[in-house]
């Protein structure tokens, strides 16, 4: 499988009045063509910031402090703003939560499509833009595209609005679709349909997708591989089937056990990822980890990659166990 996106040692800081906030630290992952990658973790663990940094959409004061992100051989972080703009929307699509907030409230939908298309394909006529938009809307399962196109955002239902957003994000046939909690604001019944729609749009075009979510069920059902993040770092990554059946990191285990009726073992203790103003020293999860020992809060955990495949785990104990039991077969 060809690699489409390769992020290495990505770090992001946000400049706040109280100092630099280390939001993302040393995150690496790769995404193959046609692959769907899930990014999971509790709120505030840096999932959204990680994917937003790829397309230069950090909040005010945020900046990438290190690492690279090779997209189709091009380092996204080394791009000038103008060329990154040309990539956004054209080669990388983006969908976020709350579709009503994403659409412009005072412009007709057709006009928003036209602005978007002309930003990348200058010189296209009104009629051409409209027919492209109509096609994109049909692809996302909207059967009366003209009615939607002549209307405004507030006239749509939540599910419809999210479909329009997906149509906008994919109208120029991007090779990568980044979706940040795309269904959080939707009714449970519509969430599934929207996710299935996104999966189908991605699979049909042999595109790739990064799906940020806090819903492990969604990852299990829709993703090929997964990275689990905690406090700005990746604690575990690999194929979904392997990570979910044999979670190695205590945090992943805790997350899985927290799914109602979903798992065995200890659930996560209360609390959340800490906000950090200094680079990590020990394991960030140590304060909430039932197995933590002195070592954990002093030494940064090593990345264990001997589990086979592209499995990676960052934990002292996994390393010790690997050392004593030897690498498992296959």
């Amino acid at each position: 499988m060809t690699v489409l996106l390769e992020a290495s040692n990505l770090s992001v800081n946000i400049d706040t009045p109280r100092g630099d906030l280390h939001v993302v630290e040393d995150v690496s992952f790769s995404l193959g063509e046609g692959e769907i990658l899930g990014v999971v973790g509790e709120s505030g663990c840096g999932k959204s910031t990680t994917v937003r940094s790829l397309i230069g959409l950090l909040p005010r004061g945020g900046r990438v402090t290190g690492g690279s992100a090779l997209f189709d051989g091009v380092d996204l972080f080394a791009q000038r703003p103008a060329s990154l703009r040309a990539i956004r929307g054209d080669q990388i699509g983006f969908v976020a939560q709350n579709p009503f907030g994403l659409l412009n409230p005072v412009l007709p939908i057709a006009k928003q499509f036209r602005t978007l298309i002309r930003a990348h394909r200058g010189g296209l006529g009104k009629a051409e833009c409209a027919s492209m938009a109509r096609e994109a809307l049909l692809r996302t399962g909207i059967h009366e595209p003209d009615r939607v196109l002549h209307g405004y955002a507030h006239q749509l239902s939540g599910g419809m609005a999210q479909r329009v957003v997906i149509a906008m994000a994919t109208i120029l046939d991007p090779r990568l679709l980044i979706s940040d909690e795309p269904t959080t604001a939707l009714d449970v019944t519509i969430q599934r349909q929207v996710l299935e729609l996104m999966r189908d749009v991605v699979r049909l075009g042999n595109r790739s997708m990064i799906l940020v979510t806090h819903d492990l069920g969604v990852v299990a059902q829709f993703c090929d591989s997964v990275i689990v993040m905690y406090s700005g770092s990746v604690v575990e990554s690999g194929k979904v089937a392997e990570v979910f059946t044999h979670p190695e990191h205590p945090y992943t285990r805790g997350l899985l056990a927290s799914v109602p009726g979903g798992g065995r073992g200890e659930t996560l203790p209360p609390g959340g990822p800490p906000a950090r103003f200094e680079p990590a020293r020990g394991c960030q999860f140590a304060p909430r980890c039932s197995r933590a020992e002195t070592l954990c809060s002093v030494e940064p955990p090593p990345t264990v990659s001997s589990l086979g495949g592209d499995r990676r785990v960052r934990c002292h104990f996994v390393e010790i166990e690997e050392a004593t039991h030897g690498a498992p077969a296959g």
Partner: protein
Amino acid sequence: MTSVDGLREQVAAAPPQTSGQQARTPRSRWALRLIVRRLLILPPSLFILVTLSFGLIELIPGNPAVAIAGSGATHAEVQRISTQLGLDRPLAERYLDYLGDTVRGDLGKSYFSGQSVATELRHRMPATLELIVLGLALASGIGLGLGTLMAYRARGFAARLSNWLTSVLQSAPDFLLGLLLIYLVFFKLGWVPSPVGQLGLADESVAPKTGFMLVDTLLAGRAGLFASHVQHLVLPVVTLGLVYGAFMARLTESLLSKALRAPQVEFARACGLRERDVLRYAVLDVRGALLTYVAILFGTLIGGASILDRLFSWQGAGAWALDGILKLDAPVIQGFILAAGALTILAYLACDVASTLLDPRVRDDR
């Protein structure tokens, strides 16, 4: 693909929430209906305004007859003037008379000059309006420009400079700025004629047709007078533009910097829209609030232009009303309050109609 089938049902079950009917009514007819409906509010509002201003003047202690007669007048003289002005009749009778006259367009006569208040207003209000409308137009331009700059390039040098500038301008009373401009632009630089009114002292005025001198001089075909009037307009308009432009800039900055952080702007960027389109989306988001602010400023200025009128010797309604107040000239005060209030309410109505027409969300609500 099962999912698409599922979608079909879902779409059929949940059509777009609007009737779609309003969107299809011709916009102009729909707008007309809205305007008519809004205008119906005007008469009762004005009625309340008239009643309040009448009551207010009545409540105020002090007898105008005494003021008119002067300090050395005898009791009999004061009585005579009272009778002459009708001040000795019962309150209710005078109120009903006043209401009836007002409906007929007769706002009474000034106690002192004997001039018809309605005529004076007709001649003087256009001069004030000319000033305010041009001043607000300039203020909107300055405010939108500087505000956008401050919100969009918050950390740049130009933004810091205009931030500082608008703070200072906001702290300066308009008459102070006006005086300093007179010194700088008239006395030092000599770019404009001396601030003696709408025209120079030597200029022979034209007969008022519309009352708006910009229009009247053109109608009379007097290009020289028109140019002279434009020159005399510069200082007061720039004064208004700078002071209220600073307020507009502050508001634009705070609204726009919030709008620029909104999800719709992030999504626009994520779609790779050009920065000028991104900025346009954000501005579209705040234009309703800005429009409202312009209407509020208009209301404030109609009542508050008296100082600038006086400063630039402008023959406007403000200075006239101010004199009326200092002399307890009740018909003048009432007439001005009524006219200024009516214009303010009209401005709010226009703003309300405009923002309803501009915002499809409100449009569908009504």
